[in-house]
């Protein structure tokens, strides 16, 4: 809740800069820049070529959208393990929509993807909120169910690029002023989500619930409604990621998005969102997603076999949570000291 207090204070631009320098997200951003610089020094085309620059921005965009959604849910003190299955299911649905209605406007497909994802999220949220069951169990169940529906629907069938109109696929390849459209969409999502969580009352309520759900309930916050809303947002963003997945890759088989749930949660954790809720920003989750996938691409260039990339990701996640813990302990000690000092 410190951010609320800071937001209401009048601060000079310099203080804002100091705040930015101390922010948890800055550390991750510096790590990301270091990875990019290291890879670029070894192979300049990593950054300084049209393709390299594009890939750098484009590859993590879809995971970023998913990670922002998962971040919102984790901030409320819950977790959503089903996002990977939602991404896959909506991506396949996107393809089927184009096959069923070849002349459909891609914009409506986009909306349909959002709605379908939101509906799947609504199922998760309702079960968690009304069933009073931990989100971990419910979303583990829906992870299996949504993936099962996807495989049952698709079978060994696959959506190919030729099934989708060129105007839709262009979404995945086009760019505006050298910046890929997908990245622009992802950043817009990020900015809206970050602004909402930081500045709006209902956004702050999500943090309050994550810090202490019982206290939030006693205070009069509508915990049930907010939990459902968070899951709907998460599902809708995963649905959006599914549509973008179809646009970006052109082929969608029944294992699209497999294992993304752990990547998305990993991104959020790397970015400083506490798994127990109430701490962190979606900015962190987004930068975490960028770092995760950029490392994957940078490792072979730096000369580490890409087989090791998962190990590096693991070390990154553990390093991030250990760092958060150390920072929290130091903060606690400082607060205790300042309290003793006043006495």
């Amino acid at each position, binding site marked *: 809740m410190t951010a609320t207090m800071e937001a209401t204070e009048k601060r000079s631009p310099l203080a804002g800069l100091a705040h930015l320098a101390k922010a948890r997200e800055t550390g991750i951003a510096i790590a990301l820049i270091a990875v990019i610089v290291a890879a670029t020094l070894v192979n300049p085309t990593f950054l300084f070529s049209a393709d390299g620059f594009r890939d750098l921005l484009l590859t993590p965009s879809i995971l970023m959208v998913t990670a922002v959604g998962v971040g919102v849910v984790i901030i409320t003190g819950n*977790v959503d*393990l089903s996002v990977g299955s939602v991404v896959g299911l909506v991506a396949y649905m996107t393809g089927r929509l184009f096959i069923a209605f070849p002349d459909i406007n891609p914009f409506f497909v986009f909306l349909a993807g959002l709605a379908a994802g939101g509906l799947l999220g609504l199922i998760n949220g309702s*079960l968690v909120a009304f*069933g*009073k*069951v*931990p989100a*971990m*169990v*419910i979303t*583990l*169940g*829906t*992870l*299996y*169910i949504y*993936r*099962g*529906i*996807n*495989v*049952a629907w698709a079978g060994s069938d696959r959506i190919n690029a030729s099934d989708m109109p060129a105007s839709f696929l262009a979404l995945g390849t086009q760019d505006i002023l050298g910046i890929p459209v997908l990245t622009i969409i992802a950043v817009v999502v990020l900015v809206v989500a970050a602004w909402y969580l930081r500045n709006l009352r209902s956004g702050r309520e999500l943090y309050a619930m994550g810090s202490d759900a019982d206290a939030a309930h006693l205070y009069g916050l509508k915990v049930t409604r907010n939990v459902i809303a968070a899951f709907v947002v998460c599902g809708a963003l995963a649905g959006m990621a599914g549509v973008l997945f179809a646009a970006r890759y052109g082929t969608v088989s*029944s294992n699209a998005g497999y*294992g993304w749930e*752990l990547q998305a*949660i*990993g991104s959020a*954790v790397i970015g400083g969102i506490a*798994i*127990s809720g109430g701490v962190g920003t979606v900015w962190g989750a987004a930068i975490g997603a960028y770092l995760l996938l950029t490392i994957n691409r940078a490792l072979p260039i730096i000369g580490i*076999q890409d*087989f*090791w*990339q*998962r*190990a*590096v*990701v*693991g*070390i*990154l*996640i*553990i390093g991030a*949570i*250990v760092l958060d*813990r150390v920072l929290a302990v130091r903060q606690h000690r400082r607060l205790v000291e300042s309290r003793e000092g006043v006495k």
Partner: protein
Amino acid sequence: MSAAAISLTDQPAREYKAYQHPLWRRLLFNREAAFIGLLVLVLVWASLFVDNFASPLTLTYLIREIAPILFIAMPMAFIIITEEIDLSVASTLGLASVITGLGVQAGWPLPLAGGAAILVGVIAGVINGSLVTFVGLPSLAVTIGTLALFRGIAVGLLGTTAISTFPDFWTDLARANIPATPIPVIIIPFLVLLAVFATVLHFTPFGRSLYTIGLNKEVASFSGINVGMTKFWLFVMSGAVSGLAGVYFTLLYNNARGDNAIGMELQIIAAVLLGGVSILGGRGAMHGVIAGVFLIGVMSSALRLAGVTSDIINIIVGTVLIVSVVSASFLAWVRTKRIAAIGRKKGQAGSSGESA
């Protein structure tokens, strides 16, 4: 003050027995019994209506296939009862599989390679346990990290190659049945471990302390339970058993690969939760866990024989998992309503009428 004490001692001694439900009710009306009942129903249904299900070969394959899950489900139940979780078990299994393979490739005899693999499992558990206990991190976040780390090391060590040159004696043993039965030999070490785990959980102070930790860590700590070290040893145990399961997995399929048993952690957790262990900690029993693993295994095997594809099985497993937890919370809600209604009727919140 003294008068009250005297009147208390004058009454006949209040015994716990007089206030609890009869033993048969406590044994039959609980989640574990419900799932064992469901398991029996599925078994009867499958034997009657699914061709080839009631054959010895089905039983052999069923037990072989679920053996790794059976093994790991036991320490996993311990961990979930203390309100922690270990997502890294399948990665540890994969890493142990790779170590077994590399050991054999380097010319080690299999017991040495297997021992090294179990040792690596123990080290994996020590890493998890240290981060949870000594650094004080939430186990969900820690084991998401080590899930990636251990799997990454396994894949990094072996790349895309696979090792499948294991001594015939050991691979045959992994697939052997107990003579004159369709039951694989692996059931023997499983039953030994089960006896140990069940005894520890239900009949030792250590086992009972796990429930206390799961229900309330502060209470556990003030009762003289070393909460941190208990958790540490549970993670070490989970790593060791996952390592053992990795050796078995390798020999059973005669194959050491970095991506062995990928995604199995979720199957194991689903089975444990299905068996009545609460993810909130403090609740669960060994027979329920075993029933949960068998329930998923038998359902998958029967449906596969009935020609249902694996995706439908996933849908069913997911649905059963959700229904089981939501129904538990629904029943709890009904019970509170009922007790409240009784209380209103009697004009008191008394429990004396309840026990009669």
